[in-house]
């Protein structure tokens, strides 16, 4: 089964290269407006990033990026058709026009940007790959993992990073390929593999759900950079701008102290800080420059909140996932989030 899936994946990864030039027409914004909703590719199920609640509403950090873009275009964050895509089919789905944008914890890499003809519009989460082991293994550093078996997700950068890391350190390992996070948890808990590797955020989230979390430890080494960002197709810069600046609006709003609660009030009158006025559309007309309403960014913030609010709602310390802001804090607070100015 897995071999077939992977073979198909390889086949399909090659397809867009041959056909991308002919497939998709330019004006994505017009198509989206005509369809009346944004087709947004999301994860089929990843804690904190995309998962359905019991009413069937998708929720998560990536889902809120989709909602932000829909709010910018339609003034209504509910006008999204969520299309779950797998790790193997996401880029083909984007290239073929099955989805208008991809917000699926996708690592921005050179080849994905250039060779696969995607445009990454920014970074909505900085992650890095780590290792988790049972305490009983008696390991305190990734350098002691020589000769272990490792549960690793297929079709992801995770798989490649482990290979690189172990080759670089001259160590050997035996991969146990798995398809989903839930399967990985089960294999790891039942002892089919000694080590569970994945994005550090995911490892912490997984560990919290284990029957005995204290029996497991996440090793200190972070072996890769995983800048996760939304992506659109190559070749439609206007559309790319809309998605990029929707994301930047979320980040700038946090920096400027605009929240879902005070955005309405701040937009009511001119503020001393002119950038707030430009962001909320009370001064100048940035919206018209990207073909949107004047209050596009205000709608984003009133309907989904700023980046900080989104983070705290889905993965922050008060959620079961319980992540600190860390590198995902604003640049003014020691993190890496930095939005170009709204001018």
């Amino acid at each position, binding site marked *: 089964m897995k071999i077939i899936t992977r073979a*198909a994946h390889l086949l399909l990864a090659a*397809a867009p290269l041959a056909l991308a030039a002919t497939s998709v027409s330019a004006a994505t914004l017009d198509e989206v407006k005509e369809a009346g909703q944004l087709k947004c590719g999301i994860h089929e199920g990843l804690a904190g990033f995309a998962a359905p609640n019991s009413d*069937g509403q998708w929720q998560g950090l990536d889902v809120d990026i989709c909602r932000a873009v829909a709010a910018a275009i339609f003034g209504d964050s509910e006008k999204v058709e969520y299309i779950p895509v797998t790790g193997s089919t996401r880029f083909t789905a984007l290239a073929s026009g099955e989805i208008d944008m991809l917000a699926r914890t996708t690592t921005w890499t050179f080849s994905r940007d250039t060779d696969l003809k995607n445009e990454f519009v920014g970074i909505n989460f900085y992650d890095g790959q780590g290792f988790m082991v049972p305490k009983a293994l008696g390991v305190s550093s990734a350098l002691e993992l020589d000769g272990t078996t490792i549960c690793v997700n297929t079709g992801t950068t995770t798989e490649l990073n482990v290979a690189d890391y172990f080759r670089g350190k001259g160590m050997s390992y035996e991969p146990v390929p798995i398809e989903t996070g839930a399967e990985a948890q089960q294999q790891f808990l039942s002892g089919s593999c000694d080590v569970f590797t994945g994005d550090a955020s995911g490892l912490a989230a997984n560990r919290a759900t284990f029957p005995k979390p204290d029996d497991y430890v996440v090793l200190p080494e972070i072996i890769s950079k995983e800048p996760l960002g939304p992506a659109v197709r190559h070749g439609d810069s206007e559309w790319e701008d809309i998605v990029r600046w929707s994301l930047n609006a979320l980040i700038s709003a946090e920096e400027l102290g605009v929240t879902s609660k005070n955005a309405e009030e701040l937009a009511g009158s001119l503020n001393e800080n002119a950038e707030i006025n430009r962001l909320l559309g009370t001064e100048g007309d940035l919206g018209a420059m990207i073909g949107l309403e004047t209050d596009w960014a205000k709608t984003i913030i009133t309907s989904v909140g700023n980046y900080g609010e989104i983070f705290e709602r889905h993965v922050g310390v008060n959620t079961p996932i319980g992540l600190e802001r860390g590198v995902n804090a604003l640049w003014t607070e020691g993190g890496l989030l930095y939005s170009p100015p709204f001018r």
Partner: protein
Amino acid sequence: MPRTSKNISFVRTKLLDSKVPPTREKGVVLWVRKNLLSSWLNIILTAIVAYAAIHFAIGLWPWLKNGIWQASSLADCRAILADAGLGPTDGACFAVITDRWHQLLFGFYPPDLYWRPILAMLLFIGGIAPILFFSLPRSLLVFSALAPLGCFWLLWGGTLWLPLSITLGVCIGYAVLRGLEKHIAPSIAAVCALASMAFFFLFGFQPLVGFAQDSFPISIQKVASREFGGFMLGATIGLSAIVLSLPLGILLALARQSNLPLIKWSAIIFIEVIRGVPLIVWLFTAQLLLNYFLPPGTSFDLTLRVIIMVTLFAAAYIAEVIRGGLAALPKGQYEGADSLGLSYWQSTRLIVLPQALKISIPGIVNEFIGLFKDTTLVVFIGLLDPIGVARAIQATPEWNGVYWELFIFIGLLFFVVCYAMARYSLHLENSLRRDHK
């Protein structure tokens, strides 16, 4: 001395009642002796299997017995277990089923419309009953023909005039066929009927639906295919494919036996190409590659694309199963039909197919069971079948970490459906058996 009745002092006039067999030759003891302990090898095997079964049951029972059915999250489940003095893995957390059963069954179908898929299922069962059970009156077959359109309308919603217009189109074709059949050759009448249907669907269909809907609007809320999910999605894909692939498969099998090279070779190429490629590749094709070939901007419904692909895939296999049945018929049957002066379609309908299908029943039902389970493959193209929904549920903050409970539930659902199909197949084989029992 000759033995006569005179000198025999006692003649038994009625049979003795049979004696009670010895304990070891009757009842449970006999069954156990014969089936479980008939030889040393069997005794050893019985002991091993019994040990494994009991061991398994003892291990599993407390987990099931301590299962928590009411909780808001996995953490809550564990807290309840801890209050009862149990460890986090000592009891199942079936609360996930209580909380999310509706998603496992219906996906993201709007909850206030759950009656529609349920009604569609009942309609389907009602429609298929006259086909499955010969004792029901034949006139009900009209209902069977209309049921799929009713199911389609209930599941997807929209205007009632759409299925009604489809029915009208089929009726036009049928009327043309019956009307011309008596005057011209049947094959030409069939071509005329197809042409009139094509004409209707190309030119008359859209305006008619639009006009009727504008004049007498009858419609129910539309539901997008995207909102289908869970077991309902599997059933929609599986049952549509089953219903559509059988007639298609029969036609393909007949075409493959045809004397006309064009028809024969088209059928062979179709069957071999479809069978030669794994279903998952056809699904990827349906999801991704078809979009490259369609004009930009056309979004042809994904679920519909998948149903078509699965139907074609199943039809190729069914065709081969039926070809086996056709090949098993003695040549004399074909020759007998010919010597009676029956036409090709008459002999096929009256002599060949009834016998060939009877032989093929176990194979066909086997295909259908396989097909039904294969629908879970759609998870790889991002459709949320039961497994896909389970994965999504496992990713929610509340239920992250739940595993077996969801799969046990899904397994039970599939088992019930597949077992019912298998039992029906047995029933059909028995009722169609014409040899001495």
